[in-house]
């Protein structure tokens, strides 16, 4: 689980708290007199949308300005411009920092070191993926001790920034960056670039970070994360809220944009391979789901209710599929799904779409018996598979079935 922030939150909340040098800024809505004064002080500014997107995503909406009228106009238009399919939260203008040098830095948890690491590159300012690996320096960090100025300086030196005032300034800023990373429970943070002025001062000029929501420090962050207008559907939002309501059992969905199969899947691994199989076989799944983790009856029933409320009316096939469960009680989960299906049908009228079921695990036969009875009551065609049929074969069958029934 992760929560993301962009540059504006960094400028407003984190840079001052951790004394990380950053450019001055103003946020729309802002009085014209303030913009005028700031531009006069700064010499120029850059208008940006407050949105969670990379440099490529924001391209076209990041504009340099020098006069007040253009700045005011851009602040309004950028705030209202859809960027990479998303609506910005607002727009803001940062001080232009004339730079001699741009440097990329990132602190992140690294699967190679199984701990945090610092990455430095003196060719900052562009998308870091396009920089050759040989130009980047990554050093592991001790999660207990963190990053000290000497380590930071050494990393910068390895990356090509010789010892001196600049190296020293930046090293100290990187230590502050680590303090922020560690104190707020971040999973990764990236400053790209640090802009270095002719006098050797450094400014953190673009920022993005991801928090680890499981980290207790994130839960005590001290400020509320901004809510970005998202592209998540009402279905995803409802399920995410329900998922957050309890840790008992999974309630994870992600829209895939498909139109045919409503897949209620169990187990992280199973859901992945089933969706992969459905996608390959033309099953056009509506979403990815994982409802495993032994949900109690009420949890599963509400999860199923949300799925049916948002998707059943449009679906052409209901797929209830999982591997052989380790702990999940099939009798409980299937009773909950059956009851939710019955209730939905009582309200909306039964949809006689085919139902394909595949499962194994504790209480399997009781669960099958309960669901089968409900499907018969609702006059819904069905095929049930036990654990002796591989789930990927069941998924491939469901895909072929829905393609045929949908066509006909």
């Amino acid at each position, binding site marked *: 689980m992760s929560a993301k922030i962009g540059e504006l939150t960094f400028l407003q909340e984190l840079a001052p708290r951790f004394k990380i040098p950053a450019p001055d800024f103003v946020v729309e809505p802002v009085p014209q007199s303030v913009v005028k004064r700031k531009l006069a002080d700064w010499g120029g500014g850059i208008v940006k949308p407050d949105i969670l997107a990379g440099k490529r995503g924001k391209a076209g909406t990041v504009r340099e300005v020098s006069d007040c009228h253009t700045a005011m106009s851009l602040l309004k238009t950028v705030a209202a411009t859809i960027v990479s399919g998303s609506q910005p939260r607002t727009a803001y203008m940062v001080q232009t920092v004339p730079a001699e040098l741009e440097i990329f830095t990132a602190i992140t948890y690294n699967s190679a070191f199984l701990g945090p690491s610092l990455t430095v590159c003196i060719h900052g300012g562009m998308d870091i993926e396009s920089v050759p690996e040989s130009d980047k320096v990554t050093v592991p960090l001790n999660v207990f001790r963190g990053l000290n100025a000497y380590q930071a300086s050494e990393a910068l030196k390895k990356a090509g920034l010789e010892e001196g005032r600049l190296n020293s300034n930046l090293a100290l800023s990187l230590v502050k960056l680590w303090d922020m990373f560690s104190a707020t429970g971040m999973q990764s943070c990236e400053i790209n670039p640090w802009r270095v002025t002719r006098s050797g001062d450094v400014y953190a000029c673009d920022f993005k970070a991801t928090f680890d929501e499981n980290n207790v420090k994130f839960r005590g962050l001290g400020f509320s994360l901004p809510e970005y207008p998202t592209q998540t559907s009402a279905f995803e939002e409802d399920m995410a809220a329900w998922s957050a309501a309890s840790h008992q059992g999974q309630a994870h969905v992600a829209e895939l944009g498909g139109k045919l199969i409503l897949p209620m899947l169990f187990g992280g691994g199973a859901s992945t391979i089933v969706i992969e199989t459905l996608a390959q076989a033309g099953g056009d799944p509506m979403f990815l789901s994982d409802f495993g983790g032994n949900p109690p009856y009420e949890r599963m029933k509400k999860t199923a209710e949300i799925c049916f409320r948002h998707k059943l009316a449009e679906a052409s096939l209901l797929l209830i599929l999982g591997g052989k469960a380790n702990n999940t009680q099939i009798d409980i989960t299937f009773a909950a799904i059956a009851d939710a299906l019955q209730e939905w049908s009582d309200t909306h009228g039964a949809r006689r779409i085919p139902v394909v079921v595949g499962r194994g695990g504790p209480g399997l036969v009781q669960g099958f018996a309960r669901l089968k009875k409900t499907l018969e009551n609702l006059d819904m065609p069905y095929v*049930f598979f036990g654990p002796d049929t591989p789930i990927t074969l069941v998924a491939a069958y469901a895909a072929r079935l829905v393609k045929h029934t949908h066509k006909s």
Partner: protein
Amino acid sequence: MIARSLNGLLRKDDRVAVSNITGREASKVSVVSQRYCGNIVAGWALGKAGHVVEVPGGKNIPVYGQFEEMMAALPENRRPNKVIVYSPPDAVYGDIKEIIENSQGCVKTVFVITEHVSIEVTAKLRRLADTEGVDILGCNTLGVINVHDQVRIGAVGGDAPAETFRKGSACVISNSGNMVNTIASYLQSAGLGISHGVSTGKDVLVLSPLKELLPLAMRDRCTKLIVLYVEPGGVYEQEAIDAIQKLDYCKPVLVYVAGEFAEGMDVSLGHAGAVVGGAGTSASGKKKLFDEYFGLPPFDPENAKKYPELLAGHRRGIRVNALHDLVPAAAALMAASGIKRDFIPLRPLALRPWFVGLGGLAKDLPRDLVPYAANIPEPYARLVKQQVTSGVGRVPSRQSMRNTSHASSNDGATPRIYGHSLLTLMRGGSFAEAVLLYWLGQPVKHPFEARLFEMSLIASLTNGPGTISAQGAKMSASAGNDPNTAMMTTLGCMGSVHGGNGKKAAEMLIKVFAGTDLKDPYDRDGAPDLAPLVKKFVKTFKQRKAMAKEAGLEYQKVPCVGHPVFNTAAVNYDPRERVISQFLEDEGVYNVFLDFYHQLARGLMAQGATSKTHAVNVDAALTCVLMGIVWPLLVDKKITLERAVDLPMIAFALGRVAGGAGEYLDHRDSGTAMDMRVPVSECRFLGRDLD
């Protein structure tokens, strides 16, 4: 890792301790593990010292309050060398630190089952493991199974590990716990058993990375082939390939990489770590990596025959595009590498539907989309026969009911019974209807049923003050008790002989009619032919009676036939039963159970099992009334058999406890203190004075 082979992670004679063992999942999994291999020596959970996790059919697990306390209490040769952690996420780091500090070097491997552990804590655990010389697997691992030693830790194999994991030569290492089981069951179709199954977990940081596990598998003497289930995220696979390329020799590897469908979409897969974060960490990147290592494109099932030859040149392995392709790919790899199968392959992978109910849709489908229901394997077939395709009664679903109820609810405004407003019932229903709703979970179908039930309750009120239950109420009044105590005494004076015979009658009726096609007990035309049923029943009863008499034993009488009062005529009737029968007749309602009872009473006499026609007593009538109501629900599997057989006694008790209250009120108003006491002069001693 300090383990030198997979055996080092888990082997026979390892001693396992379980943290937070009294938790929902931990206790359940521990019981299954203990039955499977008995390797758990103890567990601990804060505030639960002195508890025991009971293991039916296995050794119970003692519970201590803390790890340190557990170590002090266990003898040296029983102290754990493996620990499985089920602690809450925020407690995981503290608990593992405590384990390491207090284990005196005893604990060598820690398995962290807990989900939602923060990445920072996970990184700290790795650091701790490196400095303290301990292996930590997880977080969010499902555990490990060593099939040759028949031991497991965690929930690998679910509740029947022996069913999925047969001894063999393939090692499964998987980012998904469930896929360990799934792949093991798939491979049985290739005649390939399992040496070890390892669930690595798939958090952002995997504490037992593939580069450390693969060499262990390469060194393991039981493992001849390695199967990997891989998800996007992390550079684990690149590192692993680098690591095994440095080894002297490599065992063949089969790989399935999942998650490519999510590329280019802002979709997070189920596991926290299945997130792309850089070049080569995507599913497509990992597929490319393996294909380059193998020097072959992915397995093509259409051309399976060419692979033994193709693979013989490489022997490094191959990647499959579909998980079920693991079976033909494994067969080809085994042939190419000279690996013998572990057992005769089980049935090939195929669609084997258990229930097909496509109805009218089937007509419009091509033949290959209308599969025939296959033979269901044991032990499921027996259960299916019992619970789905035949028999009556719903199979109960079990869950913790501590703070839950299907029967009642209260949303702060309206109390409800099975979702029906109590207030509406008060306004428009009868007590009998409300009680039946509470007992059956749904309203009665026919209006006459509530009336019949009410008549039964009235009949149960009393059979005079001499009945044992009425005597109980009077005793209680005589002793000076309050009314609730007197009512409890009335209930306490009921048992299997007085008031409980209806339960036996219900069991008998269900046994007799479960083998018939009876659907509607009120439909005379659709009722089964009762004469042969009666004849068969009486014949069996007579045989049983004769055998018991010959052996000088008490025999099981026909329940609810005969009455101590109404038994003086050649053909006897219980007047209360007659009222119910008369009502049925007046209403034009047939009750197959009551008809059976009357025919049975006559049949017993006619076939010489009794000397006269005994009365069908009121308990029988009450049972027949209730069975008439519940039978359609049993056929539709809407209620359990247990509930159905309990109802007659509950109904009798409800009527009789009201009657007991009447006796109490009368006795309290008019009786004298302790007037029920039997004078000493009337009591007889049947023994001999000894001093």
